[in-house]
């Protein structure tokens, strides 16, 4: 029996099972920690523990640092979509619908989700590595010894900044997306400016804009919270910081996909 147990422990099945168990443990630990910290952040906000100096600093970082990359990604994506869709639509006689199609696509989905991806790569990864570095270099312990709540000091300003600034980023990126789509439609399918603009107006709905802004606020807060939590759970040295950053990016992608689905289900079905 003992030798059988030994052999089993060396087997691939055992090691695979062990790996899966560790992954599951890590998954539930992260999920639980996100839940606990979300509640903690909400309680602090409800009690008015808002340091506006820190929030403004984080707002400027969230929007200013991420804007070039966000505008580039959304702009390029819209150019690609317009280049592929506009010629086909013109061929089918749907020139006057190109703008509407772009407007609906961007306001309902593309502006927020592509900006979210850009923010995750720019800001989320930066938040995670920053908090993780603070964790592994004992700076978070130093905060606690100085009797400063790390959640109040690190999480709250970032989450509030994400909630406030993400819609601003989405407004800019969606506007750029519409402009880029118009230019690409003109260059690839000779869709006239007037046709495109009037079509865009037809495709813009107040409800779509409101939902996009609401959705982007949730995206911003979720990205900031998840990134901070993943950083906060880091341990070890440089490897720990790297793993925390990767985890933050992956979890944030999944989180915004889930939030997107929930909001779409609530408002459009």
């Amino acid at each position: 029996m003992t030798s059988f147990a030994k052999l089993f422990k060396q087997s691939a099945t055992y090691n695979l099972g062990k790996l899966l168990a560790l992954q599951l443990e890590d998954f539930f630990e992260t999920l639980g920690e996100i839940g606990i910290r979300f509640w903690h952040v909400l309680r602090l906000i409800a009690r008015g523990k808002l340091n506006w100096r820190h929030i403004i600093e984080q707002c400027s970082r969230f929007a200013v640092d991420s804007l070039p990359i966000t505008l580039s990604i959304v702009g390029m994506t819209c150019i690609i979509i317009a280049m592929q869709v506009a010629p086909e639509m013109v061929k089918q006689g749907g020139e006057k619908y190109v703008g509407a199609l772009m407007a609906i696509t961007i306001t309902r989905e593309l502006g927020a989700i592509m900006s979210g991806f850009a923010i995750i790569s720019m800001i989320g990864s930066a938040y995670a590595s920053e908090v993780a570095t603070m964790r592994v270099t004992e700076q978070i312990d130093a905060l606690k010894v100085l009797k400063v709540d790390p959640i109040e000091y690190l999480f709250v300003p970032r989450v509030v900044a994400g909630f406030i600034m993400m819609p601003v980023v989405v407004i800019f990126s969606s506007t750029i997306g519409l402009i880029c789509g118009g230019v690409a439609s003109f260059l690839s399918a000779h869709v006239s400016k007037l046709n495109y603009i009037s079509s865009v107006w037809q495709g813009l709905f107040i409800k779509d804009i409101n939902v996009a802004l609401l959705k982007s606020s949730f995206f911003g807060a979720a990205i900031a919270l998840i990134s901070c939590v993943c950083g906060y759970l880091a341990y070890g040295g440089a490897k720990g910081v790297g793993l925390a950053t990767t985890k933050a990016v992956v979890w944030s992608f999944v989180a915004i996909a889930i939030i997107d689905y929930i909001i779409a289900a609530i408002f459009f079905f």
Partner: protein
Amino acid sequence: MSIEVKNLTKSFKDKTVLDNVSFKVDDGEILAVVGLSGAGKSTILKLICGLTKPDSGEIIVSEGDIAMVFQYSALFDSLNVYENIAFALKERKEFKKKYSEDQIKEIVAKNLKTVGLEGIENKMPHELSGGMQKRVSFARAIVTNPSTILYDEATAGLDPVSSTIIEDYIVRLRNELNATSIIVTHQLSTIKRCADKVIMLYNEKIVYQGTPQDMIEGGNEYTRQFVTASIEGPMKAASSD
């Protein structure tokens, strides 16, 4: 009694780090905690300042702030020296109400003078040497006039001269603030210059309690092995990790 530790036990996963450890440190006294790497010295400090919770046992610390000087300084690397030292005064409610910006500037300047680093307020931590970072972390630790100061290997990795400067500060801070201090260290020079009492940890327990002089001159088989840095003796480095 300023710090009293009673029957403290702490485990991490399967490994017991401290088992039924008890000791006392009187007001204004400096206690040195020594032992091999992984013996649980830093864990004692983390338990005292509340960074981690004990599995069982009791820690009684007299009223007042607890400050800690970390092994690698743990300065906030996104803040400059001034902001690091002023941090607690600017972030904590009780100090925010008590001090104006000008008063905070004065306190920071005074603390920097205490550690011999005037005029470096605008420097970032990465622009400072290891010894200077350590001294800035001293200045940050004492800004709230703590009644207890914990030093986690405050002289580790420093050259002998910088170590002596740090050791002098430890004694000076005790004399000026009458703070009760606990130093975790591997260095005999720190024990000789600073400590009033020494405890030695091995295999989760205290294996020696006494004065630095007794420890260095006689002590027991554990302290003799530690003082002579001998491989031969009751302590095995591998088993303590």
